[in-house]
């Protein structure tokens, strides 16, 4: 998993819960990296799971909710770092439906070894979109947060329903309806 996911995550934790919380979750986790992250490095995904789990334990906030907040924060990173990518879209439905065929293609150019989730478009209209999310990471709420922010970026809102196809969250259906 790319280092920027870790550094941004820890920045957010520090911002919301203080530097002690960062230190706590790092000490409580068994990290190969010893909690030393740089945006340009690559680290094991299991480290993120441990950090999330320990943050959830210490704050009594569910992992899904943590991911949601983190995703909303992460969208601003995309906005600052890759404004060009966002500028190629005029519409949130267009942008979300092209994750697989455009955005991830671009991501792979920068991070060839990135392990990305799969988004399969099941149906699409001007105002609605149904997609299946598949990933062994089960980070669907990270996706949900990014989707919320996508609509916000284009000055609109949407109702997004999340249906778990597999109980462990590795396969989830997103039903998106523009308001």
């Amino acid at each position, binding site marked *: 998993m790319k280092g920027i996911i870790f550094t941004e995550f820890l920045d957010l934790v520090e911002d919301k819960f203080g*530097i002690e919380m960062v*230190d706590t979750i*790092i000490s409580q986790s068994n990290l190969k990296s*010893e909690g*030393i992250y*740089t*945006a340009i*490095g690559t680290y094991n995904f299991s480290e993120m799971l441990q950090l999330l789990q320990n943050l959830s334990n210490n704050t009594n906030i569910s992992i899904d909710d943590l991911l949601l907040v983190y995703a909303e924060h992460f969208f601003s990173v995309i906005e600052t770092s890759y404004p060009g990518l966002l500028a190629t879209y005029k519409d949130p439905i267009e942008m979300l439906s092209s994750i697989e065929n455009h955005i991830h293609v671009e991501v792979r150019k920068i991070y060839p070894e990135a392990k990305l989730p799969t988004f399969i478009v099941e149906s699409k209209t001007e105002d609605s979109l149904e997609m299946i999310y598949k990933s062994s990471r089960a980070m669907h709420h990270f996706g949900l947060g990014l989707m919320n922010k996508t609509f916000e970026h284009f000055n609109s809102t949407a109702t997004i329903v999340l249906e778990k196809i597999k109980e462990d969250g590795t396969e989830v259906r997103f039903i998106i309806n523009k308001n």
Partner: protein
Amino acid sequence: MSFKKIEILERTLERERKARKAAEKILEEKSLELYNTSITLKKVNQQLENLLNEKTIQLQGVFENINDAYVVMDLFGNVLRMNDVAETLFGYDIGKESLNVTDLIYPEDYSYAMSSYKKLKEKGSFLDYTARIITKNNSVRWVQINSSIIYNKNKTPIGAQGVVRDITEIKILEEQKETILKELKNSNQELQEYAHIVSHDLKSPLRSINALISWIKSDNEGKLDDITLQNFDLIDTTLETMEKLISNILEYSSAGADTQKKEEVDLNKVLQNLKKVLFIPENIKISVLTPLPTIQGDFTKFQQLFQNFISNAIKFCDKENGIVEIDCREESKFYQFSIKDNGIGIEQKYHDKIFEVFHSLQKREDSSGIGLSIVKKIIDLYEGEIWLESQLNKGTTFYFTIKKN
């Protein structure tokens, strides 16, 4: 600040420092990688540039050095570039004036030119377009053009190139050749007729002389002395020789004429026929060593051919038991025949001369010196060759070839 807080900050600082170092290391590796890649790219680029340069020089060389006119035009026929040969041929200087290829089309060839242009657009090229053009100073030249469309890297046509060969001289030569061939045919025909008439006309006074002499002889029977009678006999013989000469000339003049006759000729039959027709003395044995092929041609000419060889062999036989052997060998492109005898032989110095007309090595009344020249003519007609091997007093072998059809 509490001790715990200091510890936390220290740990945070330590992590930050290590992260920075890790980042620096990664960046250093990346920049080395980039540096190496850029060096490789530069090298490849240089190689490509060299290659491009080389190709450009080669192309420029071709453009300037080909003997034909070379023209590059856009899709509307406007000439963009042409070499010096083209400038000389067309008489236009595109540096000073614009030129469209349609300006060059000879009016009568217009529809042919348009259909060729259509083919060029549809198929991407055409070959051997042969037509006339009008140059700037209004002279007409025959040209042969090969042309192809030039595509850009997206396979979109952007123009066309053509190699234009000036074939005016060749055209003129071709026409001249046609005329000369026609004339030659006519004069050959005339010559043959002439020979025919001449020999016919020459024969009739001979017959008159013959008749006159026999009248003189019968009118003066008993009055002429022996010497006079002997001289009259000599006149008779001379007349006979003369008659034979004239007949042979006639035969010779028609031998080389291509009768265009193409029939299947079984040479075995030719030989069987000859054995019946020719007078073969008892002491001479004619044998055919191998079955002969069947070839395409004129039966009479093949008969003439073998007749001349065999009668020569018979004529010049001085042995008690004369042998004439006919043999044949098949090669990939021709048949090789041989006629071997054990006669008087021919001296080396005469080997070329014997094929010349009227060249008889022996003054004999039955030999006019035309036979072998007829043979040579017939063999020439069938694109063959003739040669011989001979030993004086031992015999001669003639070899000749006949081209397979």
